[in-house]
């Protein structure tokens, strides 16, 4: 880890890339393009990033290289957005200045665009640490430019397989992230393909795990359990690098989720159980909180090792003061930070429409869909499912057949919509789930759905692009929060 430094004048990492001659102008040009793109409504949010990548290819590495506490990279198939938001929100809660990329911009260009809005005209980013969500494929691209100090790798599931090919390929993508991480790699102990990446961490890089108590494992089937109910041995992928199999169960976890309840979770850290109320929805988000805690603890351990001067001697508001406060936060403070995290866009967000609480649930892959169905009781609520097949959703509809919908048999589904509404209706038909209406037009389907049974809670399961449409349509009739992760 870095040597002892104090105050604001930390030396920049030696590997920080040289700026090109025109780099001084990058923030101005980038901001200009961003403004122009906004005013003319052309090019989308990543467009300024595209321009800057072209004219100043080292902008990303140079800007992130300034951060005194480095970069936390979060990747994996499920829960990236929520977990990134949790890590960022906890670090901010504990006093640090945090840069993070907004929802949906989880590719390199999106990060560049987000940076452009935050840097000042001298190209300086006013943050102590960056927490970045990156899509698996773009994470590989990213680590070629920026070596993260921390990597949090969540899971590999069948998601958008048409894009990456196979799950083992996805695991291989993430192994490049582990290889590039300089400080600490935090891994999901319960996902064999992720746990096996420990072997990929470079010498000197620490490996930590987050895990589940045995009693909770049935909530979280691994990808291999998806196909059948028979559990599969660990070490799928490259057999040689996995190490002895018995290591799976004895790997010590830095943070373990030991109990869950209604808006309630218990985490075990250093052999002590900490229970807290949480504002997060769904069991899987509680496990994401354990992942976030583990990475925050890794960052904190490094901050403690900095050998900062005692608090009274530090100027208030300085970096050293923030680091000191962060390093001094005890486990209770960390847990309190977890309790204050709010759900992210489409991850159990509740919107009030027509006196009905409408819960928006993003589903991207069989595992996520299954976990959502298990987390939200259909009894006493109306259910709508919206399935699109745009590129961001995945073109292949096969995944719907890997989800078990029989839990909806009794309540039925009030409305099925989206481009692939008929595929979804067919899927439900073969699971003998009654479907009251099918309408491929999202707006008219949504209107009919939210106006039925006023006052009755509603669950809407949506794929990514259909979620955007549903939110836009709901915004016409209700108060919908900004989709971004930013404050």
């Amino acid at each position, binding site marked *: 880890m870095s040597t002892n430094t104090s105050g604001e004048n930390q030396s920049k990492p030696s590997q920080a890339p040289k700026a090109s001659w025109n780099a001084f102008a990058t923030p101005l040009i980038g901001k200009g393009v961003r403004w122009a793109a906004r005013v003319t409504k052309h090019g989308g949010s990543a467009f300024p990033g595209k321009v800057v990548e072209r004219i100043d290819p080292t902008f990303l590495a140079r800007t992130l290289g300034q951060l005194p506490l480095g970069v936390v990279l979060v990747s994996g198939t499920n829960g990236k957005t929520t977990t990134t938001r949790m890590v960022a929100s906890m670090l901010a809660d504990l006093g640090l200045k945090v840069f993070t990329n907004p929802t949906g911009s989880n590719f390199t260009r999106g990060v560049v665009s987000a940076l452009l809005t935050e840097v000042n005209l001298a190209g300086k980013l006013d943050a102590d640490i960056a927490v970045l969500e990156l899509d698996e494929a773009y994470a590989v691209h990213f680590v070629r430019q920026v070596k993260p100090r921390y990597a949090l790798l969540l899971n590999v599931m*069948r998601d958008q*397989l*048409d894009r990456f*090919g*196979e*799950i*083992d390929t996805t695991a291989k993508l993430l192994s490049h992230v582990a290889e590039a991480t300089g400080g600490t790699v935090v891994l999901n102990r319960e996902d064999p393909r992720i746990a096996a990446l420990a072997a990929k961490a470079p010498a000197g890089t620490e490996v930590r795990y987050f895990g589940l108590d045995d009693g909770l494992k049935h909530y979280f089937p691994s990808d291999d359990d998806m*196909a*059948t109910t*028979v559990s*599969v041995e660990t070490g*799928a*992928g490259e057999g040689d690098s996995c190490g002895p199999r018995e290591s799976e169960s004895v790997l010590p976890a830095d943070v373990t989720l030991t109990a869950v309840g209604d808006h309630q979770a218990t985490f075990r850290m250093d052999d002590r159980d900490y229970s807290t109320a949480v504002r997060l929805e769904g069991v899987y988000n509680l496990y994401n909180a354990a992942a976030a805690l583990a990475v925050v603890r890794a960052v904190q351990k490094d901050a403690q090792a900095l050998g900062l001067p005692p608090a009274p001697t530090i100027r208030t508001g300085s970096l050293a003061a923030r680091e000191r406060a962060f390093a001094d936060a005890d486990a209770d403070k960390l847990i309190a930070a977890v309790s204050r995290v709010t759900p992210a866009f489409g991850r159990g967000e509740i919107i009030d429409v027509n006196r009905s609480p409408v819960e928006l649930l993003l589903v991207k892959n069989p595992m996520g869909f299954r976990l959502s169905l298990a987390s939200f009781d259909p009894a006493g609520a109306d259910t709508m499912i919206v399935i699109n*097949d745009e590129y961001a959703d995945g*073109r*292949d*509809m*096969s*995944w*719907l*057949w*890997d989800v078990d919908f029989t839990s909806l048999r009794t309540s039925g589904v009030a409305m099925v919509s989206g*481009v*692939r509404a*008929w*595929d979804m*209706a*067919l*899927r439900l*038909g*073969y*699971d*003998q789930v009654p479907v009251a209406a*099918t309408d*491929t037009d999202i707006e008219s389907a949504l209107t009919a759905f939210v106006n039925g049974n006023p006052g009755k809670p509603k669950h809407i399961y949506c794929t990514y692009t259909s979620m955007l449409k549903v939110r836009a349509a709901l915004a016409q009739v209700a108060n919908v929060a900004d989709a971004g992760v930013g404050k």
Partner: protein
Amino acid sequence: MGKTIDVMSLYPKDMNIYGDSGNVLTIRRRLELYGYEPRIHQYNQGDAWPDRVDLILGGGGQDTGQKKIIDDFFKRADLLRSLAADGTPMLMICGLYQLFGEYFETVDGTRLDGIGIIGAHTVGRDVRMIGNLVEHSEQFGDVIGYENHSGQTFLNEGVRPLGHVDQEGRGNNGEDHTEGARVNNVIGTYMHGSLLPKNPAISDFLITTAVTRRYGSFDTSDQTPEQAAELKRLDAVAANARKTAAARPR
């Protein structure tokens, strides 16, 4: 009580990807709705072979999955060959379609044997053929699904494909406009989607063949009017799903 039909799901643990289990579900449900009693046997490596098998469904898998089943698969090769020769209807998707062929040649030139039920061989390539696909089959009409494979399969002369595709860069090998293979009552194909729910014509071919071989003829005397109506409803939904899928981008 309806007449029993024994359906085998071949290696569901390791050769089942992209919703191939939807095919098993579809066969089971349609048999029920025709008034028969499906008995599903999940056969994984090392399991005992059931006394009777009327219909076999197999899926795709990752390379690791194929490695896990291969020893057991060769032990069952003679049995599978005799069942196929005998006319047992089978549907083999992707990975098992390739293994039902004569051999697979990997990118580095290594040859892996198949069991030779289908006169075809597959060559590993770096390019993956991925996307929505419609193929035209004389017997089944348009077959609608989603292909996702890097192996390119070439049929021996005289081996019938399941169907033909309009464009190059898709189907068995991207070159000769064929997709899948049809040998006796064995169908091999790259189509996921899942295949059977959106292609009831193929489902019903497999079902009627299995029933006829076992009971001499296919009849629906045990079918209730409610079951007939539900089947009709499912097929109407499938027709809509087919129409959408056929118009979607690759």
